[in-house]
């Protein structure tokens, strides 16, 4: 399914390349295939310079958001934690925009800025949402919305002050992923892979944490260390995704939920499956965003919000009598 979505994503868009040709062009790029065909030369340019890097970035972004969403849900033991809803994505967005507008060093520093923004946000939200020894569902979402709005407001302010980049930033905030070519992918790749690897190996620790921090500690888990590791991993992953694809909501919420309903709550499976499912989901959403109003393409964040927000409300309604959580 993931492969199919991948091929479709490469092939379709403002200019449609027949999927068969698309595959052949790709295989032809590999050194051990000699494939030629009669397609216009610009097919190859579009495919190689635009569609392929864009598609890989979109898949990785979806994977990153869903993976960190699953980890945040496990860490807070809260079915509604999502990088977007708890404000981390907005915080990362603020960090990214701050770097873009203040620093000429530019894009290499953007993920670092986003990472710092994400960590700052998660710290603030956690401190605000904590009641005694637990983080209740309601206060987590309220604190996330409040801190996220604050970060978004600061972001808007920064955009207005440095006005020449406002259009780029605007579409960034909506999850535009306007950047193209291989460059952003090269920068984001190491962060995304490092973050997601850390998330996958945290699966067992997240399982133990489901009994609560006290019991986890009594069972022998070094809770404080593990929490820091998971927060760093999830923030890093979110930040890298946000740096190059903008603030995209609800993927991190919807995907782990569906996975949990079908495959259960074992985080050793849940995290890797969420990563795969997130890649698939965002590819499909991105495809829809590009096709619906072709030749214009919508920011993918609009598509995920249109589908994700109603889903969020549905979860909220059944959260009270949740059995599979």
């Amino acid at each position, binding site marked *: 399914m993931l492969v199919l979505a991948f091929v479709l994503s490469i092939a379709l868009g403002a200019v449609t390349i027949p999927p068969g040709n698309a595959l052949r062009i790709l295989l032809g790029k590999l050194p051990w295939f000699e494939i030629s065909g009669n397609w216009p030369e610009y097919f190859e340019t579009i495919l190689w310079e635009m569609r392929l890097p864009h598609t890989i970035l979109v898949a990785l972004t979806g994977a990153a958001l869903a993976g960190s969403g699953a980890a945040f849900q496990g860490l807070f033991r809260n079915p509604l934690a999502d990088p977007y809803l708890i404000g981390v994505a907005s915080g990362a967005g603020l960090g990214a925009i701050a770097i873009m507008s203040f620093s000429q060093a530019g894009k290499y520093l953007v993920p670092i800025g986003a990472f710092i923004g994400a960590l700052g946000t998660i710290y603030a939200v956690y401190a605000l949402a904590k009641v005694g020894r637990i983080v209740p569902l309601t206060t987590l979402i309220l604190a996330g919305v409040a801190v996220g709005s604050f970060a978004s407001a600061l972001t808007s302010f920064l955009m207005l002050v440095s006005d020449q980049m406002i259009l780029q930033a605007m579409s960034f905030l909506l999850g535009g992923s306007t950047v193209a070519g291989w460059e952003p992918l090269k920068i984001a790749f190491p962060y995304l892979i490092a973050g997601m690897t850390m998330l996958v190996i945290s699966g067992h620790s997240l399982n133990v944490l489901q*009994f609560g921090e*006290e019991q*986890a500690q009594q069972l*022998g*888990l*070094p809770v404080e260390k593990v929490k820091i590791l998971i927060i760093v991993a999830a923030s890093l992953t979110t930040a890298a995704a946000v740096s190059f694809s903008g603030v995209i909501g609800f993927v991190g919420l919807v995907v782990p939920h569906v996975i949990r309903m079908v495959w259960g709550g*074992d985080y*050793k499976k849940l995290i890797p499956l969420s990563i795969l499912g997130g890649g698939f989901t965002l590819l499909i959403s991105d495809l829809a965003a590009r096709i619906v109003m072709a030749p214009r393409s919508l920011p993918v964040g609009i598509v995920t919000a249109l589908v994700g927000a109603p889903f969020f409300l549905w979860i909220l309604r059944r959260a009270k009598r949740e*059995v599979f959580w």
Partner: protein
Amino acid sequence: MRSGNQGNPVLDIRSLSAAYGEVTALDRVSISVNRGEILGLIGPNGAGKSTLIRVVSGILKAKAGEVLLNKQNITSYTPSQRARVLAVVPQARQLGGAFSVEQAVLLGRTAYLGFLGKPSKLDLEKTYWAMEQTEVTHLSERKLAEISGGEQQRVLLARALAQDTPVLLLDEPTNHLDLKYQVNLLTLLKSLVNKQNLTVLMAMHDLNQVSGTADRVALLVDGCLHSIGKPEEVLTPENINETYQTKVESFNHPRTGKHYIFPMM
């Protein structure tokens, strides 16, 4: 019988004080538990029983005093080192409902599992053994959220047994159990203590169960140690009347000679 080896406590609680913010929960409590001994912890609600268990298991910091586990301060253990010596059976509430019973019991092996949580053959053997002992094997595929409170309590005991430690702390383990499983649990506990020379500290509500199970009893009131000793020395009508504000009578069972108390109604 087993209380003879004084002076070699496995668990030595020395003048321990603890507080939640400004509220004192434990005030200079000293209790030691010897190898092979069951010490019953009793006291009215809010007396500090659960707090004592939280401090001894290293999740709440003491305000003053210390807890020695095998002559070593409890705070000097890493979580994983401590979990190989001391296991806790908490009260059954707020269980991660998405796990199956078997997965939950297997997590008792956390201190032995690697970071990825891949169980060895020994881990699985201990898990299955523990589930047999507490009679939850037939539930192994069921989700924790789908089983009753009493079954959850037995799963928590199995999880602690899978942890394979010489010391066990239990926080009101018979709370959600019906009569059959109350008796089964206490009988199992006694036989494990005899077979494996375990050391047990157990908070309990039912005074007669304490009397029937524990070698010694410690009575806590308002965070202070009121009295400690053999059941018949602590569970006197005077002590109970004073601390629980309830009139009781005591008598010895005609056949077993065990000490029992009866509320006057």
